[in-house]
């Protein structure tokens, strides 16, 4: 009875400590924050912030500033997107706002209107303590 037969009742997503799944049947208003990964398939207005990964599905509409570790966008985002790691825009993505990421992938067909800022990660070796430090450099492209 408790064995999975492979059918999924909800979207598959990468596991985090507390995964949040916002389906297409609801609307969120306010500041959506989570310690785990977030999957958005519905409507969100306000802000979205997570320490983990964010996935915005192709049926979703997000009117919010977005902050995440890594993000994958397939729907509509009206707001600024700030990602520490990789940001991927699929061919169905539509982003109106500024984006900031260390690693950026924009697929053919994606629509992006805004400024793009890339954060560079440089490793500096410290001979005494053998620690690596990260320096952030910014380059702007329009």
């Amino acid at each position, binding site marked *: 009875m408790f064995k999975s037969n492979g059918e999924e009742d909800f979207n598959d997503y990468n596991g985090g400590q507390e995964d949040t799944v916002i389906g297409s049947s609801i609307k*969120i208003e306010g500041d959506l924050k989570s310690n785990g990964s977030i999957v958005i398939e519905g409507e969100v207005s306000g802000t979205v912030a997570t320490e983990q990964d964010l996935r915005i599905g192709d049926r979703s509409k997000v009117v919010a500033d977005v902050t995440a570790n890594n993000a994958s966008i397939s729907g509509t985002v009206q707001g600024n997107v700030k990602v520490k790691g990789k940001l991927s825009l699929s061919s169905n993505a539509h982003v109106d706002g500024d984006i900031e990421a260390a690693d950026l992938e924009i697929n053919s067909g994606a629509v992006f209107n805004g400024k793009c800022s890339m954060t560079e990660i440089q490793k500096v070796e410290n001979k005494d303590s053998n620690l690596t430090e990260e320096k952030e450099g910014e380059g702007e492209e329009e």
Partner: protein
Amino acid sequence: MHYYVYDTFLNDKKYERVLDRIKTRLLDLEIQGKHEKLTLLKSLDELINDEVKRGTSTVILVGNDKTFQKVVDVATKNKVTLGIIPVGPDNNIAESFGISDVETACDIIAARKIISFDLGKVNDFYFFSDVKLVKNLSRLNIVKDSYKILPKPECVEVSVSNFYFPRGEEPYNSKMNKYSAQDNKIELLIRTEKKKKNWFKKKQEKTLIDTIISSDYFEINSFEYLPATIDDYKVIKTPLKLSIAKEKLKVIAGKNRLSHIE
């Protein structure tokens, strides 16, 4: 000393042999106690309150999931330990605790391995499984931390779940493991309807989990008073304040319980 409570449906003659097997096994294991059959005239809450005053600390329920769910609130408020002897159909909760049949149940009671579970709390009432709303869902607004969740008309069910187990044909997804009754969280589950067209069969309707949000607190408000069902048996009205009560319920469980139950 244990207090054994037999649910009303066990008065049916078809359960006589099973009840005899239970009593024989309990005698063999020398687990003494007082046995009481529920009737329409006797309230379960009053019976348990009275027995607790007489010094009972363990209540063994003979019945099914509904028997267990009905007792959770009064057992928690009286701080008694619960055990289950599953009889008849609809025993998902006992099965998830590793209790498969009456003989195994009696052995588990004798072994007395006690597990603590979180409970959900809705207003002043404790629940084990979930609180469900099915009517006028688009008129609800659910508050969590600094944001509101607004269900759309296509939602068919809003539930806040503490202990999740599959219903009927719904498959148990391994990812739901982390939404257990020991994670100090309750989960908001919103379901929609999915209609499948099949050339050979008629349209199949199935409810799917569309939204999952974990928290330790939710508020459910509405424009008017809407009914909410607690553990499929008690009905209360909105507004609802739902929170988690950590490790509130003690249950005697078996070794073969679900892997995510510690």
